[in-house]
């Protein structure tokens, strides 16, 4: 079964650990504290895949003598520090890494079942490239043997970079090149090998601590209530194998009718509640397209069901159905049995198309974007080139769609139903973004993880297919940067509301990195999310103000959309920020904390010393104690 397949793989990833990144975090954080005096280019080096970044350009990083020393110490060994169950598969000396920014570097290349590790000793400080094989999308031999008898290999990565290596032709022609070994372990699925996360996971048994508990989240939203109930109809994934077991549905629709509704919705993905407005009771519900077909089939059950969704909200006598697709595509789906709700059949519903394109268009757009930004940027027509990729245009459409949903729910007090074709790509983008705008809880670190767990994982976004974990078929038409787009949209909102999110840019980058490193499920699902204090600090936005009841309406004009340089162009050392503003904020907060402590100490002293201290106790400092919760 498709569903259980994907869930299984996720589940097993859940049980593995994020140890590597913890390692790298702690090591980088040491250097970061050293850095704090100047700390120019901060924590791009947070996750395991990015250790490379911190070290790769260490000569370019300013003012970190200790950090550099640290790197040197670490890298005195030829081999990387291995994870449990990680083993070296091959090692080759005299490999040349052709860095687009520094130039050719000669060093030692190590391939394990988890990573590629390149080290160049000639440079001061040593140059290290350390990336999980999960990031690799394609390995190809470039050209034949060169005049110097070298063969060259190109690695196309999923994180917007390409790596190029060259090494001497093997004298023993029977021996496999290290890159052939690499190919084997980079694409375990294609080669009938277990993914590393499987093996690795067995070392760390799950400890049961979970970020996401559907019951808890529904309870937070005040569910079940008089209009909505939690049904167990999908307990064994019988109604829909890509839905979670707990579903929230209108109270007056019995399970039997749900099954009939499921028959009319693509892949059985019936409309279920994602979010309910705490005051107006307007809801966001998600589903897949109705199976209308060319003949305009109708389902009384489905019509009744949507009516019930509308009726559950007393504030409005209308229901908005947001179809994420362009209307042309929605119509074309009728040929394949799908389609959209006709307004004749659904009396009080208004159908709106949000014009968001399909996964193929998005994939193509990202490909173009990579061409424009990597390795170098052409200055003269930068903006036109950027426009020609349409990437930000797609981001705008997605944000605009989410904004309209949020607006209808918040300002119009009207319930909405969101779907695309299957309801797991564009639908997930839209509902989760709208929820992020509407509900401050999802803007905390913890809440954001819940949001991802809920809207993306539990409702069956097909990470495996869209990213192609461990699969060498890089031309697979099912691959698409759907989740990346979502994270980009989140970043755009954080740019516009710099104080409204508890997490920062690094958190988002780290999430994306772990998605590719094949430890994504891990990252999302279990104990490892208990970020230790260092991680928390790295990911925390120092300026976060908890406006819990504040709805964010971002401006979706191109004027305010920007390319996310910190992600797409992060490999280019020139694009590192010139100034550690982030660090300055933290210093300021530290200063305040220090002073607060001093004042409190003094107050305590005074209180203790003086018998008539009662007036002092309520002294002015109280009034200046911050209401917010950062320190």
């Amino acid at each position, binding site marked *: 079964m498709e569903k259980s397949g994907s869930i299984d793989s996720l589940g097993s990833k859940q049980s593995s650990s994020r140890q590597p990144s913890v390692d790298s975090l702690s090591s980088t954080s040491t250097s970061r504290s050293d850095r704090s005096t100047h700390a120019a280019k901060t924590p791009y080096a947070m996750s395991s895949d990015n250790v490379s970044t911190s070290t790769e350009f260490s000569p370019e990083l300013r003012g970190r003598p200790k950090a550099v020393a640290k790197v040197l110490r670490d890298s005195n060994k030829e081999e990387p520090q291995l994870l449990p169950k990680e083993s070296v598969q091959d090692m080759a000396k005299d490999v040349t890494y052709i860095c687009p920014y520094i130039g050719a570097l000669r060093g030692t290349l190590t391939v394990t079942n988890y990573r590629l590790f390149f080290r160049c000793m000639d440079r001061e400080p040593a140059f290290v490239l350390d990336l999980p094989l999960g990031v690799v999308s394609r390995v190809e031999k470039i050209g034949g043997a060169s005049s110097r008898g070298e063969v060259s290999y190109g690695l196309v990565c999923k994180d917007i970079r390409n790596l190029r290596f060259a090494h001497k032709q093997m004298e023993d022609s029977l021996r496999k090149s290290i890159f052939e070994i690499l190919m084997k372990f980079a694409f375990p699925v294609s080669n009938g090998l277990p993914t590393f996360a499987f093996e690795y996971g067995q070392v760390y048994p799950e400890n049961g601590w979970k970020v996401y508990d559907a019951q808890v989240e529904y309870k937070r939203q005040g569910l079940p209530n008089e209009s909505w109930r939690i049904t167990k109809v999908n307990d064994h994934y019988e109604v829909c194998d890509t839905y979670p077991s707990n579903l929230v549905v209108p109270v007056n629709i019995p399970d039997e009718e749900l099954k009939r509704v499921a028959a009319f919705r693509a892949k059985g993905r019936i409309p279920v509640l994602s979010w309910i407005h705490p005051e107006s009771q307007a809801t966001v519900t998600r589903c897949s397209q109705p199976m209308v077909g060319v003949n305009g089939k109708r389902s009384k059950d489905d019509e009744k069901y949507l009516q019930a969704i509308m009726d559950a909200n007393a504030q409005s006598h209308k229901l908005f159905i947001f179809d994420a697709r362009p209307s042309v595509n929605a119509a074309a789906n009728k040929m394949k049995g799908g389609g959209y709700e006709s307004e004749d059949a659904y009396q009080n519903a208004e159908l709106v198309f949000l014009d968001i394109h399909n996964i193929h268009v998005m994939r193509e757009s990202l490909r173009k974007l990579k061409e424009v930004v990597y390795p170098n940027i052409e*200055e003269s027509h930068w903006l036109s080139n950027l426009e020609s990729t349409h990437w930000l245009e797609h981001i705008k*459409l997605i944000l605009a769609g989410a*904004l309209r949903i949020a607006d209808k729910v918040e300002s119009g007090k009207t319930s909405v139903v969101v779907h695309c074709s299957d309801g797991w790509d564009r639908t997930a983008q839209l509902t989760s973004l709208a929820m992020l705008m509407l509900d401050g809880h999802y803007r905390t670190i913890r809440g954001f993880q819940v949001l991802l767990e809920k809207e993306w994982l539990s409702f069956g976004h097909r990470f495996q297919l869209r990213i192609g974990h461990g699969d060498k078929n890089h031309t697979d038409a099912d691959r698409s940067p759907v989740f990346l787009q979502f994270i980009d949209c989140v970043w755009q909102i954080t740019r516009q509301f710099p104080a409204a999110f508890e997490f920062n840019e690094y958190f988002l980058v780290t999430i994306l990195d772990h998605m590719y490193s094949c430890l994504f499920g891990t990252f999302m699902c279990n104990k490892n999310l208990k970020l230790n204090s260092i991680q928390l600090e790295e990911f925390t936005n120092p*300026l976060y103000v908890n406006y819990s009841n504040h709805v964010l309406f971002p401006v979706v004009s*191109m004027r305010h959309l920007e390319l996310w340089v910190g992600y797409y162009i992060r490999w280019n050392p020139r694009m590192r920020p010139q100034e550690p503003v982030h660090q300055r904020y933290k210093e*300021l907060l530290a200063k*305040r904390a220090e002073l607060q402590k001093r004042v409190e100490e*003094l107050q305590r002293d005074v209180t203790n010393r003086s018998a008539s201290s009662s007036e002092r106790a309520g002294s002015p400092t109280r009034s200046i104690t911050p209401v917010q919760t950062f320190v």
Partner: protein
Amino acid sequence: MLSSLGSAAGKSAKPSFVSYVTPEEIKSEKEPSRKEKHPDLLPGEVVFCSASTVLKYTQDDLSQRGVFGALLCTNFRVSFVSDEAPTEEMVRTAVTLNNGQFDRSLHRYEDKKKLITGGLVKNKYPSKIIIHCKDLRVFQFSLTFAKEEDAKKIFQGIVHHCLEPKSLRCLFAFSYCENTSYPEGIGNDSTLCFSPPEVQRKKQTVMFDSVEDWTQDMKRTKGNCRVVSENSNFELSPKLPQLFIVPTNVSDEDLTKYQGKGLPMWCWSHHSGCGLFKTASIPLVQEDNVFCRMLTAVAHNHLYSVKTEDLSDTLPTVQDIQLSYNKFKQFFLIDNTTEFWMSDMKWFSSLDNCGWLDIIRQCLQKAVEVVECLEKENTNVLIMGKDQLFEEGCILFDKGWPHILCPDILFDIYIFFTLLENVCPTMTLVTEVNSPYQPVPYTLYPHTPSLTVCLSWQAESPYTQRGPLNCLTVWDWSVQFDCKAQDLFTNPLYTEKPKQDTSVRKSYRPKHLRQLSLPSSAFKTPPKKGFFKDEADNLKKILGVKRLSRWMLSPSSDSPQTSSSVREFYEAWQTKPLDYHGLLLPCLDGPSIRVWMQRYLRWIHDVQILGGGPVAVLSKISEILGEVQELQRELDRYGCTLTSNHKGARPRAKTAAVIAARSSVRLSSSFPFVTSRNWSFKPAIPTSLLQSLMVTGMAGNLANREDDGGDPESLV
């Protein structure tokens, strides 16, 4: 109704005046209660004409309702006073009058040529006026309900006073300063600001109008040149400033012989001793030896090295800039929502095509090149240009650049104002790239009457021959802003130069040492072709000069050499620890050069981020700073001194914190320029979304494909 009218106006090619007869649905229920309403006039300000029952409205106003009021035209501004109840009036005026400031001064108007060329204006009066301001605001008034006579008068009055060329003498600034008693020094504003007079005196801007000012500035940078005061009555040349500095080797004879032509004027000295000089380009007929003499004089300044930079060859011309800016600003003069969203689709390519950001990049790059020469090679640099503007533009950078952060440093006023229109976006862009220095942009807004004074003073400097003209300086912000508003100019994150030592010289030393300690390899430059030429080469160039305006056409093809050198310079700088008081370089790569949103988009309703934008950060930071200061004070009260190394905590920040933190949730990104209390909390939903994508025909067949081509069951 109004909306339909508006869309009609939007469709036609942006008419400034639309003369439809507005349908009568809108009743003028509100008869103006008080006929005569005036804004608070400035000394010397006179109302020329006025009309009451004018409807001010916006196309984007969701309520579709305008405000009635009186429209006045004075010798300084066009002003609208609303008829609403007093409380609301405050709000309304705050909107129109830009934070209680004087609104749009007459000389900022631009309008369509059609109107300027008489004829039409005489007989007709429109029912509707759309005013495009130079600061990119758009106002729309309906005259339908005003008395015909008044309407005609106000319309003609505005056209006459805003658009028709006038003698500079008519500038309001002259009437203003004649009518303002403004003694030098402390001024009459101490009531406005609570800081004691001494503080103000100390902070007062160096105006470079006395020998002492120049000497002091030269000393500050340890320059070693001579101040020339021979031109104080414009005897040498009316084109030269009254005071300037030349290399010591320039003799008195040199000064007089050529009427000051080709004189290298000192701008700034690097701590190594090398200096930056500028000169207007030398007339071709002049004998070679003038130039040689001057070049030698410059070379003598430090180590006998000099590089020249002829800007007219390498930077866009004033015409190029004007052309580009004219295109650029059209993007911000937006009449209605539909137009806004239409233009949103091609935003990036339109920006690219107008070339504005490219010009800014070129300017910055040139400045970095000059800095590179001074900083890395320690050679004197002589900047030449027929184009005074650009020459000075670069000087401004070089001079201001390393020191832009010192609060006591001010730019050469003359240069600054000449450049205002073109360079200030550049300036601020630079500062934006190094984002902590937010306040700088604010200081550049030409919002004030006093600025006009300075401009006119500059433009007609011979006036001063008739006796001292006691102009107000824009730098004395207290004339127009109260303390609270002035606080918005300060960047809460700015850290002052550490003052372990009172001597100014000392503080420069560390920078010098740092430079010396750098590995020499980092400073190894490849031989440069192109822009900096040696002496002989340049002489040839000068004599056989042929103007090359190739820049706009092929920015990349002719400058690879330079940009690679600049690149290296930047990368070398990047590896060094950041010194806020030392050298700062802008990143010139594509994504780093961005539109200065706060300036250009501040009046456009659809892009205001309610509860967000930079002000959200600013207010948060100010709040924290305020708390830090409060705690510090608390500690002081306990008689305990904690060594504070956070110099950002300056006394004023506290008040800033109070204003900004007040309700940052409800502030919009256009704060403080627009207070958004009247706006409904509704998101701006784009109209017309899709078209562009499909029209461009991108990946047509991809778009039609199914999301999941394969049979899902076959997949894992």
